[in-house]
Structures are given as C-alpha cells and as structure tokens.
C-alpha cells in the first residue's frame, strides 16, 4: 500500500544546477565552494520526505480536542464547522509555550488534508517571496504562486504532485492548509482556507 501511494506522487526529476550562495555568519569556515552540476537522475524521482497527511508534526503529541490544544497556545485556534471533525489534533512536543502550535488532520468528503496553525515566524513579504524565488532550474517542484483569499488576504499556494495547499498569515498566526493531491484539489484547498480565514 505504501508503494502504491508513493507511485502516485512521482514526477519529473529535473537535472540540477548548483548556484552557491555566500552569506553572513560563516566564521572561519571555507567559503570558496565549487559550482557543480550532476546528472543525478534520468528516471522520474521526487525529492523530500514522502507525503503523509495523518500526522502533521514530527514532534506531534495528540490531544483530546481543540480546547485541550488551546490551553497550550499563545493564540486562539480556530476550527470552522464546515470542514468537519478532525481525525487527530496534535500539538508540538518540542516547542516552548511561545512556539506552540496546533495541527489538525482530516480525511473526509473534502479530501485527505492537514491544517496547521502556528505562531508566525515569517513576514508577508517573505511569504510572497517564496513564490518569486521558486526556480525549477534550482530544483523547485510544482507551482508556487500568490493567490488572494475571499477576505482579501494574499496567500501562498503550493501545488505539486506531493501536495496542494494554501499558506497565509493573519494576526500573528501562520495558517497552512495542504493535502493529498489525489483527493484534495487546489479549489477545495482555497475553500477550506477561506473557511478558516473567515473566523481567524
């Protein structure tokens, strides 16, 4: 079953070209890196962790309900009735109280997807910059685009063979809705995002 699920997610693996960036904070270490190109693959291979949509967090600890999660958070989490009941609600085991967030997993008529709500660690400019910095020649997979939610919020849509979703910022909280592209469409992702944005 694992293999069948993985096979659905394969797509072209572009030949990569390295552009070495040199920035601050290197100390006494070697900065003169080489530029290299490799023929890493000529068969379809995706990169990154295999997608799964039941467990939002690598350090996840399940809690009984949203109230139990809220007791650990520095912000008020939201859960619109229109998206149904989560299969699982997680908080982070590793986070400090200020870093704490909540992850919700769903598998319903809307699709198989996750919603995370975490204290924002990026600016709006940085969020939108992720779209403009996506370069397929530098390994960027799928499409990274800026979309506008129903309330006018500008959001980042990431659509690939591994997930489809929408990420946005509101009142210091970062929201991310993303799901299995075989069951969850970009249109439904925006519908779910709009439902959360409307009450956040």
């Amino acid at each position: 079953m694992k293999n069948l699920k993985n096979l659905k997610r394969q797509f072209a693996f572009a030949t990569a070209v390295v552009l070495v960036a040199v920035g601050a904070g290197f100390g006494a270490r070697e900065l003169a890196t080489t530029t290299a190109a490799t023929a890493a693959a000529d068969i379809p291979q995706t990169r990154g962790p295999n997608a799964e949509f039941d467990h939002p967090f690598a350090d996840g600890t399940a809690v009984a309900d949203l109230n139990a999660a809220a007791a650990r958070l520095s912000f008020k989490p939201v859960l619109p009735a229109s998206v149904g009941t989560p299969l699982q609600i997680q908080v982070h085991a590793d986070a400090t109280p200020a870093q704490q967030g909540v992850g919700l997993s769903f598998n319903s008529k809307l699709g198989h997807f996750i919603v995370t709500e975490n204290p924002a660690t990026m600016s709006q400019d940085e969020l939108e910059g992720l779209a403009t910095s996506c370069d397929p020649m530098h390994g960027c997979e799928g499409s990274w685009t800026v979309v506008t939610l129903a309330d006018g919020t500008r959001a980042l849509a990431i659509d690939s063979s591994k997930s489809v979703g929408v990420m946005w910022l509101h009142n210091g909280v970062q929201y991310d809705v993303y799901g299995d592209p075989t069951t969850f469409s970009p249109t439904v992702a925006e519908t779910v995002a709009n439902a959360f944005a409307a009450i956040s």
Partner: protein
Amino acid sequence: MAIVVGLMSAPARATTPSCSTEQGVFWKLFAGGYGFVYGDRNEIPITDHSTSCTSGTDVSQTAHMVLNGVYGNWVESGWQQYNCGITHCFQWFGEWGLNFTTHSYDPKAKACANPGTLTRYEVINVPGTNNWNVWGDCEDGAGWSLIVQYTGTGYQWGTAAGEGSRYGDATLLQNHQNLQWQDATTAWNYATDVACFHDDADGWMGQKDSPSHFEIVAGSASC
C-alpha cells in the same frame, strides 16, 4: 487533560519498490526540553549501497531539520549515491522545501565524497534570520565547507533529525552518530535521546545505539 503520544506509523510492508519510489527512515534528536533548536549535526559515513537500479539517485543520508516541527517542512544537508554509467557516484547536497514540496535542491561535487569516508553535515540557522547555511566536512583536516545558503525560508527553528532514504531496492544500512543540536547561543549540544518519527522503508528500520547515535538496519519494524 488526556494526552497520547502519536508517533507516525507505517502500514504493512509491501513488495520491492520501483526505482522511482522513495522510502525513508527518519529519527529525531531530543534536546532535553530546550524547545525548537537552531541547528542539526550528523556524522554519517559514506557507504556504497547495492541496488538493482541503474539510473537516478539510489540513497540519500542527511542531517534533516524539520522546520517548525511540521513534518512536511524541511532543510537538510548530506550525501547522495547516484548511478553514473556502470558504477556509483557520490556527492554532497542541500535541499529545502515546504508542504512536502521541494523549493531548492543543490548537489555539490566533492572529491573527498567517497565510500569509506567519515563525513559530517550541518544545517544551521543564521541568527536573527530565516536563512539557513548547510555545510559538509570530510573530516580530512580541510574543515567545514559551505554547500549552500538558503534565504527566506520562513522559519528559524525546528526539530533536529537524521534521515536515510533510498530509491528502489537499494540497501540502507547506515550509521548516524555524534548527533548534535545547536541552541540560540550557537552552542552545540549532544542529543539527549533519539527516536523514530517516520519510517516507510520496506525491510529497513532504525535502532538506537546510544542517546546520540542511531543506525538503520535490516528489519521490519516501523515507528
């Protein structure tokens, strides 16, 4: 309040995967209750893994930072074995992405990246930013070498981890040792413990050898 530890488990083991199918074992480093951490260091020997695949990448072994603890978000550095003609070649690489989708991938040719070489890899947040430097070190006296800097990732901290992944039927036997995490003062600290958080590799599993050392071995267990 009822709290249950929810580890990511994998379904029943299946048949030999195709050369396009990636499978992986991910273990996290514990930081003794510090909170999210700012850097991840793994010492990973380079090993030639047997495989029936004749093209593409065979194996990747990385220091893998789970950005903000969200499994689908990552920045990593490590080595890869790939097919080049009739033999296997080895290279360093860096990579990051969000929602399981790669944003940037940077392979780097390195003459010292050969089987039998003891190597170290780091992913380190640039203090006060959402930028990450990814490094490699062949432990040959030349010191650390920058693979790439990733800017504007949106995240400055996460859960430190180690990853071994393969395509097809490549073997995955591997040590990840001297596992360390970096705190906000840029000091390195040995992991206080290690534990599996994701395993979808058929026929391979992780085992704890010490609080700062895990090994990927043949076996059927999942997380």
